[in-house]
């Protein structure tokens, strides 16, 4: 007996009797003898709940929680306590994809609310019900661009997060599309260089702002440049920053994508997070993933359903615009509750406090004369400096004080040899910031 198997000896006997067989094995008669498992699994023996708890506690103690002063796509923002209370409700947690709208209005309504919030933040017309993460959302956005422009080549700004670039490359390479990396100048997309890369095969350009270095990029006129050649502009952004920064819509983008982790989601060693993907209504049928729409029921009551399903794999099979079959629904709920509780003002306050904390740290670091700004560009909560102090020394010294930050970018490219990245959210206190500074001021 085991707690998740309700089968008593009597139950099993009764069921076998109904089936007119003497053992469960008979049900497996069509399995060839040579593949039937004839031994125990070579895995651990059953643990009691108490032992499981102890096992994970021991695993956990092999980790060290640090004060986070780094970002690079994952940000340590504050999580309002209501989110866990709501996302733990079994009605949300244990249900399936909302195929039966009559008993899934909870899921469908929060997806509709989420789509509305992504719409307003991105300035696009329509959002899907989410993707796996920001990197795969970017890859799908590139596929969309190829499909919209009916062309084969994607231009990738070199200031995208390297993880995003890697995932896009993998997806494009296997699907049989081409790509080129457009270089940066002073830490942002090099507009002059871009013009040389644009040609009649270019389906689209993907850019990121704030970019990998944390810098805010300026996109005036960029969309026009692409549209003149009938190419598509894709803007990738950390969703939280769009609470204050110019939206992809205002920049004239055709597709917006990115990660929603910054909406108070735990870092969780990188996942789960959730990717958003939004576009203009004219391109909605090129967009992969679930979409929820408003309708009424047979009594005229307001209702929500999954719609435009004829684009998807379960109907179009090999001709579907993507193989995606799920979304990160529970994290859609997470995002929706976050944006509801923070609301119009809160999302600005979070950005303002992060901005203030980051700029204070930036100014103080420059004052040490050990750190320099090689770019001199505007930023929000994340910035990149140059230093000749050994990056390993910085890492070790900060780690001793329980801090993770000042992350070396050298591992991503030889060009980034002396570059070091900081991110400061609203969560970082004065004391933590001073502690980091005192460690760094002591190094040489």
């Amino acid at each position, binding site marked *: 007996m085991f707690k998740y198997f309700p089968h008593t000896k009597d139950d099993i006997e009764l069921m076998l009797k109904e089936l007119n067989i003497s053992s469960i094995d008979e049900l497996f008669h069509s399995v060839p003898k040579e593949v039937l498992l004839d031994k125990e699994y070579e895995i651990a023996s059953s643990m009691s709940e108490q032992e499981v708890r102890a096992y994970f506690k021991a695993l956990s103690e092999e980790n060290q929680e640090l004060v986070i002063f780094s970002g690079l796509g994952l940000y340590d923002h504050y999580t309002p306590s209501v989110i866990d209370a709501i996302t733990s409700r079994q009605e949300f947690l244990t249900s399936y994809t909302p195929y039966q709208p009559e008993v899934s209005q909870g899921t469908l309504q929060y997806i509709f609310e989420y789509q509305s919030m992504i719409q307003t933040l991105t300035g696009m017309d329509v959002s899907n019900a989410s993707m796996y993460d920001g990197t795969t959302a970017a890859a799908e956005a590139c596929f969309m661009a190829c499909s919209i422009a009916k062309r084969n080549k994607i231009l990738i700004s070199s200031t995208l997060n390297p993880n995003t670039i890697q995932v896009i490359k993998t997806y494009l390479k296997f699907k049989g599309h081409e790509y080129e990396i457009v270089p940066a100048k002073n830490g942002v997309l090099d507009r002059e260089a871009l013009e040389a890369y644009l040609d009649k095969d270019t389906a689209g350009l993907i850019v990121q702002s704030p970019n990998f270095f944390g810098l805010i990029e300026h996109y005036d006129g960029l969309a026009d440049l692409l549209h003149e050649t009938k190419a598509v502009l894709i803007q990738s952004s950390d969703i939280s920053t769009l609470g204050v920064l110019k939206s992809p819509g205002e920049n004239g983008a055709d597709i917006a994508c990115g990660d929603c982790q910054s909406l108070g989601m735990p870092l969780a060693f990188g996942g789960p997070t959730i990717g958003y993907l939004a576009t203009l209504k004219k391109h909605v*049928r090129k967009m992969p993933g679930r979409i929820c729409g408003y309708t009424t029921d047979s009594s005229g009551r307001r209702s929500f359903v999954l719609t435009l*399903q*004829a*684009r998807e794999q379960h109907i*179009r099979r090999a001709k579907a615009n993507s193989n995606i079959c799920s979304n990160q629904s529970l994290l859609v709920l997470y995002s929706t509750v976050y944006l509801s509780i923070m609301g119009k003002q809160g999302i600005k306050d979070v950005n303002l406090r992060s901005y203030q904390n980051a700029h204070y740290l930036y100014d103080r670091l420059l004052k040490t004369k050990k750190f320099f700004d090689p770019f001199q560009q505007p930023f929000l909560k994340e910035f990149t400096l140059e230093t000749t102090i050994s990056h390993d020394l910085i890492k070790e010294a900060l780690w001793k004080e329980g801090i993770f930050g000042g992350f070396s970018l050298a591992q991503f490219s030889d060009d980034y040899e002396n570059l070091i990245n900081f991110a400061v959210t609203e969560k970082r206190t004065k004391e933590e910031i001073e502690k980091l500074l005192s460690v760094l001021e002591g190094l040489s």
Partner: protein
Amino acid sequence: MSKVLKDYLYSNDHEWVKKLNDEEVLVGITDFAAKELGSIVFVDLPEAGDNVEANSEFGAVESVKAASDLVSPVSGEVLEVNDDLVGEPELVNEDAFSAWMIKVKLSNPSELEELLSAEEYEQLL
């Protein structure tokens, strides 16, 4: 029971062709195809000036639970597209034989000989 009209030609893919003159035809989907799909919610059509090829896709129709590619029965240049269908795709369900999709200038009129007559198409159903 699906409607099959006498003075139309048909393809195995359930498209109809109506001859306007020796060079120009209208193309649409049959009543049978429309009924199979159910309520049509979207029609994706090429642009005037595009070229279509016999037995190649030129667009798609979608209902709530199904999608089907439109396969051209003829080759040639698209002269005109029925834009009414974009706003009112339900016209296809209402009367599949008047809801033409594209008007084509034939590049190879002999292709018409390969198509099915109304009687032959009825057999297929």
